[in-house]
Structures are given as C-alpha cells and as structure tokens.
C-alpha cells in the first residue's frame, strides 16, 4: 500500500476529488497548507509600502491506495490538477506499512 500526498492549487480540489472518485477512490484527507517553491509569490501593500510574500496557499491531499491502483491514482491527480503553469504542485509517494480501520479493526488493503 502507498500513501499518495499531493500538493495542489486550492481551486483544483473539486476537480481532483471528482477525478479520484471517478476511478473508485473511496476516501481521502485534505488540509490547507502554504507552499514555497519555484512559483513566484506575490506582493502585498502595507500602509503605503510594498513587500514580498513567498508563501502561497496550497491544498494537500492524502490518499492511501493499494499498490495496483497507484499509477491510475497518480495519473488521475496529474490530469485533474494540471494547469501547465509553475506552481501546479507535486505528488509524493511513500510506502505504507499498514492501514487500520478504527471502526472495525480491519488492517491492510481492506482497511483503505
């Protein structure tokens, strides 16, 4: 099992969620983060002076998936989150030793 963590643009969340649902992903966990990267930040004005803000609002999606669907999931995210501009984001894949469903105590792939 793998944990797929994607950092995407906030307004793409609905598209990504729909794309994942479409390929049968049943669950995901989402949080608000701030990103720093190649994408230029913006400037802000404060009482008549301008200064640079480096951090950009991003959304993080975490999806635990079985190994066999890993590539499909990555493709789905890439397709739905892509805007072809710097700052579209990244996907990180880590190995999951185990997954447990709290309600039932099930473990492994059935718990996903």
């Amino acid at each position, binding site marked *: 099992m793998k944990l797929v963590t994607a950092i995407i643009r906030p307004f793409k969340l609905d598209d990504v969620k729909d794309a994942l649902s479409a390929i049968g992903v049943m669950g995901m966990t989402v949080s608000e983060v701030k990103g720093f990267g190649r994408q230029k930040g*913006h400037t802000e004005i404060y009482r008549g002076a301008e200064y640079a803000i480096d951090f950009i609002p991003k959304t993080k999606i975490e999806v635990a998936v079985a190994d066999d669907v890993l590539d499909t999931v990555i493709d789905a995210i890439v397709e739905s989150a892509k805007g072809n501009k710097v700052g579209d984001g990244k996907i990180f894949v880590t190995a999951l030793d185990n997954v447990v469903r709290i309600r039932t105590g099930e473990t492994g792939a059935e718990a996903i």
Partner: protein
Amino acid sequence: MKFHTQLAAVLISLVLPSVALAQEIDTGDTAWMLTSSALVLFMLLPGLSLFYAGLVRSKNVLSVLMQCFAIACAMSLLWFAVGYSLVFSGEGAWIGNLDKAFLSGITYNSMTGTIPESVFVVFQMTFIMITPALFVGGFAERMNFAAMLMFSVLWGLVVYIPVAHWVWGGGWLADIGLLDFAGGTVVHVTAGVSALVAALVLGNRRGFQQTPITPHSLTLTVVGAGMLWFGWFGFNGGSSLGANGAAGMAMLVTHLSAAAGSLAWMTIEWLRFRKPSVLGIVTGMVAGLGTITPASGFVGPIGGVVIGLCGGTVCYFATQLIRNGLKIDDSLDVFPVHGVGGALGTILAAFFVSAAYGGAGYAEGMAFTSQLGVQVIGVLATGAYAAIVSYALLKLVGLITPLRVDVDTEQQGLDVAQHGEKGYNI
C-alpha cells in the same frame, strides 16, 4: 397630518430659501436628524459592507469591503460637488440646477425646515452613498475595481441623482403623488435592477451552480445584519426629517416588518428543509426592511406586520427563481431581495396608507386605485430607467477598462490580486 404639513414646509423651504432661513431651528428635530445621519452611515460602513463581506469566499472579503468603502467616499464628493444641488436645488421636473454646486451658500445658519441645512445635506448624502453600495452584491467576486468605481460614480450621476430629484426633489414623480417615504424606488428598485443588469453583463462567477460557493463567515454576515436593522431606524425614521409622530411610527412599522419578514423566511425554510438557517432569517429581515421602506412613514402597525410577511415570502421565492430557476449569478441576491422588495413595498403602500388599515390616509384627491396607479408608474419608471442606463454605462465603461478580472485573478482572489492584501493571517 402633522408630518405631511412638515414635509410640505420642507418643500416650500427648498423652493423659497428665504422662508427656510426664517424658520426657527428645532433642536429636537436637529438632534434626531444628526443621529439619523450617523445611523445611515453606520448601516453602510460597517453594516452592509460586513453583511456582504461575510457572504463571499475569504479570498474576496477585502474586495467587497473596499468596494463599499470606495463607493461611500466617492459618492460623498459627488454629492458635495453637484449631487445635492442637482437633486434639491431648483424646480425642474427632471433635474435640479447647479446653484448649490460645491455646497456653495450653505453656512452655519442655513436652514431646511426646522433643521440646519448642513444636517439635511449629510442625511441625504448617506442615501447616495448606500444605494450604489447595494449593487456591489450583484457582481461580487469578479468585477474589476477600476471599472467598478467608474461605473458607480457615473451611475450616481446619471441614475441616482435624477431619480432622487423626481421623487424627493420636487420632480415629476413627486408631482403625481408617488408615495416613497425612504427609498423603495429611489434606493431599492434602482439598486436591485442595476445589480441584475450588472450580473447579466458580467456573467456568472466561475463554478457557479457547479461547486458550492459558500459564505466564508456567516458570523460577519449576522453582525452586519444586526447593524443594518439598527441603521435602518435612521434610514426610515430619519426620513420624516424630525423627531415627530411620523418618525416614531416609521420606526415602529420598520421594526415590525423586519421581525415579520425574518419569521416568514425562517418558517418557509423550516417547512421545506426542517432546518431554519441563520442566513435565512437575516435575509428575511433585509427583505422585510427593504419592503417597508417606501411605506414606512405612511402605514400603521398592522400594515407593518403584513408588509413584512409579504416581503419575506415574496423575496424568498424571487431568490429561488433568479438563482436556481434562471441560473443568474446575482451573487448576493440584490435584485430578488432589494429590487423585488422595494417594488413590492411601493405597491403595498397604496393599500396600507389607507386610514382603514391604520395608515396616515390618502392625500387629498387620492383614493386607492389612483394611488395604486401612481405607485405602479413609479416602480416601472425608476426600474426601467435604471436598467437601461446601467446597461449603457457598463458598456461604456467596458470600452475603457475591462469590466471583469481575468481568470487567474478570479481564482487567486481579488484581495491579493487587486488590492495587495489578504483578509486573514490567523
């Protein structure tokens, strides 16, 4: 009727400045009008701006506040420069004159009826400030700030000022006897119609009706709603231009209509969804307030309650029609709430002004049907005029600067992109 006499006195005083100067100041009337002016300002800033700001996404919260604030300031200077004069100086049927441009001739001793003219100027100024701020809700989250400001100033000049003269400055609608105590036509119909036109010209927000565009802070909206209710006491209660029985009755019926409108909307939601929402109850309140506005100084308590119930109910269904039926993104429902409410109240005034329902009674020579005809003319004339001119102005402004922000700006949010700021860093 006491307040009719008083309004007459005011009108006379406007026509004959010498008479005005001759009238003694009434400190009680002056105290109430000073207070009312402050209340209407408060109704806009922070009231309305907060009510609206809570309803947009957090990336656009400042843009809404900024739009309301900039409109308030720009309209104030427009009023100073030509607005007051064009509305209240001179006897034209269509427009006043420029004798008092730049408020010239208004001194520490100038009087309007029983109050200093300076107070009358401020009170009326708050109305031109709030009216275009109302239509900000129609094009929220997507209009380019420069275009917004240009449109609003032109609108103030070409729509608000003439219409205010027609109704309150002794123009043709005043002549035929239109009852519009505090701005059902001048304020709510014109703003509501223009919001709808702007929403249509600009087009819907990206994602409208596809993903839920949820309010970022209903807490702010409810706070703004409370401020609106409070400020509306000055809006309607001050429109009698003194601390008298008409002011008291206006406040009473305004209050009752707000309460009735709130409960009407709440009840409908409760029946439909088993969940009465706080946004529902405050929207019903605005509907009740907007609907009573034209009628407020003419009707009695029972009129107030019935008008509120009608306002809450009719505006509810109007909102469904525009938003879910016609799929028009009048983003904060300005037309169905203000436009429809203002029109409805103007028409209902024809009934409830009747002494039979505890109202102030028809003016001499008027009866129900003749009054109703006048009210319908008032609504249609102001609504049609506002719609046509708004459309033309938007097209004109669009030639100079883009009306709508580009896609990236809309996605990033107007706050950072247009104003260089974020609403929250918590």
